[in-house]
């Protein structure tokens, strides 16, 4: 039996195979790996046995109260965010107006107004697309792990 195959079997937790045992006895490197896995498996087994803490009294009530607050918060945040954006857009418009008044005219004055509208629209559209409580990042888990795995997977080959 080859070391590579033995290591794979050891990693998956099958120590009992007689061929593996025979190999482990005669190969110091695989013997060390077998001893290591034995320790780690025992540790995992013990950790698995540890019970999670008991749910404290009033868990459900507390959750329902917090849900109420959480449901209200996104709309408040949205209003606040929209408010902040309106301030930015207003500042931008003021700046554009000031620049267009101050700078020497090289075209029709009304063009500045068109530009303001074009600037303002995507800003406002962004507000409605924003996910409440930053939950847009939820979708990140698969891609986050997937990205790293894809890279790692290639390295493995």
């Amino acid at each position: 039996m080859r070391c590579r195959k033995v290591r794979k079997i050891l990693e998956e937790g099958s120590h009992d195979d007689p061929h593996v045992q025979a190999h482990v006895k005669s190969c110091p490197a695989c013997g060390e790996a077998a001893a290591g896995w034995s320790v780690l498996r025992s540790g995992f087994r013990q950790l698995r046995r540890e019970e999670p803490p008991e749910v404290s009294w009033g868990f459900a009530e507390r959750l329902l109260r917090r849900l109420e607050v959480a449901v209200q918060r996104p709309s408040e945040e949205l209003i606040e965010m929209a408010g902040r954006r309106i301030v930015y857009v207003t500042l931008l418009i003021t700046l554009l107006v000031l620049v267009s008044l101050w700078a020497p005219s090289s075209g029709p004055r009304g063009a500045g107004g068109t530009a303001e509208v074009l600037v303002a629209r995507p800003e406002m559209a962004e507000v409605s697309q924003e996910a409440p409580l930053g939950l847009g990042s939820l979708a990140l888990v698969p891609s986050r792990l997937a990205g790293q795995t894809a890279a790692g997977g290639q390295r493995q080959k």
Partner: protein
Amino acid sequence: MANPHPEARQEIELIKRCQKGDREAFGSLAETYRRPIFSLVFHLVHRRDEVEDIVQEIFIKAFVAIRGYNFQSSFRTWLSRIAINHCYDYLRRNRVSRITYFWQMGEESERRIESGGEGRKPGPHGHEDQLALADLVDKLLARAPVEDRIILTLKELEDRSVEEIAGISGLKPSTVKVRLHRARKRMLKDYKKWRRGG
């Protein structure tokens, strides 16, 4: 979607009510899934004092996001995905404070692990040896990259199948196997490093 089991049908009804903003319905769902989520979070963060708070935050996130649940995966898988995502952020944030060094281990624990490791047979160790081994694995998990910690926890502590982990993480089962292999290998390497006094 057409499920003959009344329990499954009841759950679909509850989810649909939650999607319309019914908090009481969500309370019932939370009651059903409280235990598995508690277990998952406890195994992942291993901080008794923080588990309940983290679980509450996960349920709140789930409630806010439930409109986006499209019944493509089981609700347990969907909820586990939110839990994993939340714990991932938690573990990343707390990584610096959680880095543990082997020298924090007592001499007695070290001796017990040493003797357990030399036994080469996976036979039963004494209770205190077992505790020392659990402590060692806990420290190794805390030192591991967060991605390794998550995948090892799901497989070794939560006993989830490769297919289930694939469903939770959105990875292909073959990719899960590769990642699991890599995480295990890194952990064994780290353990050997400790044995050599590194």
